[in-house]
């Protein structure tokens, strides 16, 4: 790529870089095998990146001994129009297809119920918890705010009517980003393959894919994610293309833009990590090439390395952190997500019972308390009437850790040897709990004592089981626990919220802890609580007192330790990761499998089920998707044949060499993108949905553009003159017509179907239910 030699005069970005019009008739055509391929794509063997610029100047050389005149349909237009016109048409079509019937249906569709709701939370500044990073939802909230939505719509369940609420702003924002995908893909393919028709093919696939249209029309994270993802790919390709002029303004611009887009992509969903990986691999390859170039000094290499570290690692990290800073600054009111976070975290939230809290400062006997585990996303110590099932330790009452606030989290702290009545007697004096005291914890609702014994814990077999035992607070000596504060001397009082306490089982010497493992169905999928015999100072075994109710003690306002920003950042990530891994499919539940996706096996119902409903069904345009699928096989075949041929030392003509370079290098990059966005799903344990495939589908569509363009040019190379002039244009035309016609057939999937189901011959979709698994 850097062979391109002499630096060119800097030209304004724009017209000249797309000057495909200049391609026809290369300078090197010295009467040998002059082919269409040579003319339409890569007339020159050498330059591929900055090469386009040079072609313009070489144009006068074209012409004299052309065996076949160039067919008109692919013959590029005059330079300025030829650049802008296709891009403009593509963009226009894209926006038209995405914004058409945007307001239909006027009710909540599918996951709008989540993301619309979360947008509202931002407008209302209410704290919530979600497994995805905040950027996408913040943008939705912002779009809603700017378009006059006031955040009052509850988004309770799919199918709720919006009535007077302004939802178009949010949908329009998503549709806008979704529409940008098409020009992005167009420019990416154009930059990679330098072929207008490849770019047009890729763009038309995306324009006319019903799946992409549907996914862009609602308040979802996917259009936002894909926008940043494609933005990152486009800017990566662009900065690769100016590798011949490193450290120029354009180079810096695209490099920085790549970093910004990467930050955007991971800021919307963690799936964005795959595109980070793609850019990372590309950069490593790039640096490896630079390292092998002995004409570069080590200092220059260092500069290259530093530039990339700065733009592709530090910049995205900084932006990503900023998103979270904004997220925490905006959401300052207590809301539904509080329980997932530590006491310290909650104290930041206005309206939380820990905000500007006033509780009795020191722990006393007879107090009603809740205890929160100190591990990240640790729960409250919890118990309920249900027993451990048969075969899981002793059949006694379950003790778990629970993430939500609940009356079953309340415990009463008692002396180990005294009776319940003592502390309730208002006349008796208050006695404080001190470090090293032996206590008993009684569960308030069920009046059972926190108990442990030498039975295996349900999940962590090396630990002991923790149960609720006894009746009305009368148990046995296995209910005794020694309370200790970390880093404190004996006899000191215990502070609410601030003391990190440890409960040591007196009889066995084990420590009460939460293993972080989720119990099966019998335990209501709450978190396991065990007694660990290994004495380690991990946060798993540490607790703090959160609520503290004791009418006999005066409440004092506590200025609780406010957590620092890095702490809450780390904590919210731990909680997100735990939330993500908790999304496991239930047994006997039909779930979407990754292998379903490329074959378009089954879509998703966005809206409506019955005949009378307004139905929208997320399903890829089957013709396009199956074309994409076939193309992947075709690409692999072509790539294998080409590499083997090159390896075997087959002499290729200059044109073929250029074609195979496009195929292997550019196609390879896109193929890698597809693999990175598809294969990891096979290893994921969480619940998967059809729409997870769409990022991969973008790559697959671009690959289709490049592969068919290359294939047709290969064909042209090997056919006789009379046929060759037709193959390329007619081939492209057929593909385009096929795509447009299939869109005409399937467009009701996106734009709404009313009336009978497809099984009814009267339905407009009759006969189009090609697979039985499609539900329309």
């Amino acid at each position: 790529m850097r062979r391109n030699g002499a630096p060119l005069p800097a030209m304004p970005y724009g017209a000249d870089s797309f000057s495909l019009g200049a391609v026809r008739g290369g300078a090197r055509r010295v009467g040998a095998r002059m082919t269409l391929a040579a003319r339409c794509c890569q007339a020159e063997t050498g330059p591929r990146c900055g090469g386009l610029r040079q072609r313009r100047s070489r144009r006068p050389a074209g012409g004299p001994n052309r065996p076949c005149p160039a067919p008109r349909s692919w013959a590029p237009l005059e330079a300025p129009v030829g650049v802008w016109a296709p891009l403009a048409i593509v963009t226009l079509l894209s926006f038209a297809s995405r914004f058409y019937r945007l307001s239909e249906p006027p009710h909540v569709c599918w996951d709008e119920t989540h993301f619309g709701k979360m947008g509202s939370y931002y407008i209302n500044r209410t704290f919530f918890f979600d497994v995805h990073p905040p950027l996408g939802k913040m943008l939705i909230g912002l779009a809603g705010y700017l378009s006059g939505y006031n955040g009052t719509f509850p988004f309770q369940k799919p199918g709720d009517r919006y009535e007077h609420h302004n939802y178009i702003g949010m949908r329009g924002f998503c549709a806008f980003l979704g529409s940008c995908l098409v020009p992005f893909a167009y420019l990416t393919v154009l930059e990679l393959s330098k072929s207008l028709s490849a770019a047009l093919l890729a763009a038309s696939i995306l324009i006319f894919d019903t799946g992409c249209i549907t996914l862009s029309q609602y308040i979802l994270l996917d259009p936002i994610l894909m926008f940043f993802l494609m933005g990152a790919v486009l800017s990566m390709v662009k900065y690769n293309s100016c590798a011949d002029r490193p450290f120029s303004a354009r180079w810096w611009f695209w490099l920085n833009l790549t970093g910004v887009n990467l930050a955007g992509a991971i800021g919307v969903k963690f799936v964005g990590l795959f595109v980070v990986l793609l850019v990372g691999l590309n950069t490593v390859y790039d640096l490896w090439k630079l390292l092998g170039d002995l004409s570069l000094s080590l200092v220059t290499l260092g500069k290259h390395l530093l530039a990339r570290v700065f733009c592709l690692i530090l910049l995205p990290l900084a932006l990503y952190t900023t998103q979270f800073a904004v997220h925490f600054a905006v959401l300052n009111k207590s809301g539904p997500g509080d329980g997932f976070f530590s006491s310290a975290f909650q104290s930041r939230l206005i309206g939380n019972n820990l905000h500007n809290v006033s509780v009795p400062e020191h722990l006393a006997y007879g107090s009603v308390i809740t205890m929160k585990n100190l591990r990240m996303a640790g729960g409250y110590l919890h118990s309920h009437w249900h027993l451990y099932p048969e075969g899981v330790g002793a059949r006694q009452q379950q003790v778990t850790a629970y993430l939500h606030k609940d009356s079953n989290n309340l415990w009463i702290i008692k002396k180990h040897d005294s009776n319940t009545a003592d502390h309730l007697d208002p006349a008796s004096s208050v006695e404080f709990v001190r470090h090293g005291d032996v206590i008993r914890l009684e569960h308030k609702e069920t009046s059972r004592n926190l108990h442990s014994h030498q039975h295996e814990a349900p999940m962590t077999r090396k630990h002991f089981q923790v149960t609720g035992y006894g009746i009305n607070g009368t148990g046995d000596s296995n209910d005794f626990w020694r309370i200790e504060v970390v880093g404190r001397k004996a006899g000191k009082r215990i502070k609410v919220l601030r003391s990190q306490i440890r409960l040591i089982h007196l009889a066995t010497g084990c420590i009460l802890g939460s293993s972080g493992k989720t119990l099966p169905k019998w335990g209501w999928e709450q978190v396991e609580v065990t007694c660990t015999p290994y004495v380690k100072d991990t946060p798993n075994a540490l607790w703090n007192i959160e609520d503290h109710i004791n009418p006999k003690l005066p409440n004092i306002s506590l200025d609780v330790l406010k957590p620092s920003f890095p702490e809450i950042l780390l904590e919210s990530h731990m909680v997100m990761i735990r939330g993500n891994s908790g999304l496991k499919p239930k047994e006997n539940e039909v779930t979407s499998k990754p292998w379903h996706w490329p074959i378009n096996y089954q879509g998703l119902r966005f809206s409506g089920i019955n005949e009378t409903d307004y139905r929208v069904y997320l399903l890829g345009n089957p013709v396009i998707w199956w074309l994409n699928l076939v193309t992947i096989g075709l690409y692999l075949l072509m790539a294998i044949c080409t590499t083997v041929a090159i390896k075997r030392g087959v002499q290729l003509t200059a044109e073929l060499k250029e074609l195979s370079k496009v195929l292997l290098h550019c196609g390879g990059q896109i193929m890698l993108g597809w693999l990175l966005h598809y294969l990891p799903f096979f290893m994921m344990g969480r619940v998967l949905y059809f729409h997870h495939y769409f990022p991969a589908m973008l790559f697959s569509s671009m690959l289709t553009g490049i592969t068919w363009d290359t294939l047709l040019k290969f064909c042209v190379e090997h056919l006789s003159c009379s046929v060759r002039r037709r193959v390329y244009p007619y081939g492209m035309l057929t593909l385009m017509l096929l795509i447009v016609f299939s869109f005409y057939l399937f467009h009701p999937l996106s734009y709404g179907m009313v009336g009978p189901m497809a099984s009814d011959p009267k339905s407009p979709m009759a006969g189009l239910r090609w697979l039985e698994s499609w539900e329309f």
Partner: protein
Amino acid sequence: MLGFLKQPVVVTAEINLNLVALTVIGLVSRMWALSYPTAVVFDEVYYGQFVSLYMKRIFFVDDSGPPFGHMLLAFGGYLGGFDGNFLWNRIGAEYSMNVPVWSLRLLPALTGALCVPLAYQILVELHFSHCAALGAALLILFENSLITQSRLMLLESVLIFFILLAVLSYLKFYNLQKCSPFTAGWWFWLLLTGVACSCAVGVKYMGLFTYLLLLAIAGVHAWHLIGDQTLSNVSVLGHLLARGIALVVIPVAMYLSFFYIHLTLLYRSGPHDQIMTSAFQASLEGGLARITQGQPLEVAYGSQITLRNVLGKPMPCWLHSHKNTYPIRYENGRGSSHQQQVTCYPFKDVNNWWIVKDPGMQQLVVSNPPRPIRHGHIVQLVHGITTRYLNTHDVAAPLSPHSQEISCYVDYNISMPAQNLWRVEIVNRESDTDVWKTILSEVRFVHVNTSAVLKLSGASLPEWGYRQLEVIGEKLSKGYHQSMLWNVEEHRYGKSQEQKEREVELHSPTQADISKNLSFMARFTELQWKILTLKNEETEHKYSSSPLDWITMDTNIAYWLHPTSGAQIHLIGNVLTWASANVATLVYVCLFLWYLLRRRRKICDIPEDAWWIWVAAGGLCVGGWAVNYIPFFMMEKTLFLYHYLPALTFQILLIPIVLQHLSDHVFRSQLPKNTFSALMVAWFSSIYLVYRTFSPLTYGKPALSAAELRDLRWKDTWDILIRKQ
């Protein structure tokens, strides 16, 4: 005539005494007092039951791996004349006289011992000195964890043996490739690679990763071959074909043959029958075959059938109903239809019988000739004992409120109309006019009024439903799931209209035995699928550990404890070897990266051939370590320290490689040879010392006192059992 006597008869034999000595010591170290302890040790309790089942020819399913490993162990039992009569129920149970302990443990011990000379040869084939090779062999020899694992009836040593054998034969093959391709030796080693790979995969699925590594290495070498333009196209093709056959076709064929032998040997029905489909069960002797033999093939109007859910998760069960009704109100206050319960019941029961009825006719008997039911027909299902109709309606199911309740329609106290028509959809049909067949057809029941699909939800009902499994009508039938499919298991043509028809005897057979229809491939596919998807309920074991604990050996496993004395066997490695192996890996990776970057800048620190030897050795050993270790991070099953042993073996092989490289290229000038040798001797003697120190825990004798045991607890996380006085 006697001319040949003029020349002396000469036999030239070259015997590497190192190798012989190593083999002998290896055998001694692995086989010394092999039948001690005469008690069940750790996982022997698990493998032993399969050996017994092999001896009795009873079919079983084991989700831990393919059958080759079990068969090898069973072969040991066969040689020792084991009759299979032993109750494998508890670790530590004394073996009875009929159990040939020695021969059961012989095969793992032999393979474990042979790993020592294999390690030696691998290093020689990697072009390292005999000194380094000797070092590698000694390190394997004195590795306590490998010894423990070899001396018991366990499969890891067999797996490691086949892995090392595959590696060695590939290396031999590759070294022959340069000088004499397509000779007998070349073919032998090539074929042996394929065979050893398939044996490794056949013993445990972990072997698959080494197989893939070897395939990748072979792929890289083949790629160089393609680039070799001195070879003609034909010979390149020949080379590729030979590799394809030996490394892909033969392993696949061998793998299939393991299953073929497995299924041939085990022809009796046994404890795991229920997991398999009815068709598979019918192919076993006894069990279901006895019941289904001679039952009519085609289901007709008036047929009496039992319906088994095809998925069978969480347990295999049959569609069931009984007199009891759904409670009027559930615990959470939701109402029910208060009609007769329909559940899925995991045991055979007279209440599992249903009669297929033609909605247009009253009779419940099969007409003459029988009218078979085809795909798309509408039927009613009548519960045999209570003669109530299978029904569903727009009432939420007890545990899955998004789905419809399934009930048997009670015709008094009517609050809602009967909706009891079901459309039969045969999913695995070949044409749309297919007949519903016993056992073979998988059927969906689609409710005619609401198009809900009869489905097993997998939840188990509370006390009022006797903890039976919930059956629901799935309204949003998203695609096909096996929980919605049912097949007829037991079937007879109903003869009597009377309510006593339950006692009607079976008809004479109308069709040939169904078991003959099931080919080997069908049985293989099903068994393979079940092995891969079967999930054990066991979530965590007392001695299970996470992969991160393994590198530093922060965990151990207590295998056995003498009932009275303190003698015990532990899986615990040679700490020094493990630490050295980690250091060697780290040094290798750092040096490799350093060389690689410098070479890119055209600076060569070591000669070209040394570099390629270095790359090949590292690719094999570090690669082997990585592929045998990293996948565990992605596995969700219960993991134990012994899963690390194959990876460890590769890591140990790396130690002498790094040492020789350091002495040849890095410390050549700085360090005098003598100092280096002295260091080596000191290091090896300490490894031997550590081996000696822990050998009581490895061999289980002599018994140690509590104080001695406490001294052996070098890490706090180790679980060494100390008897309380």
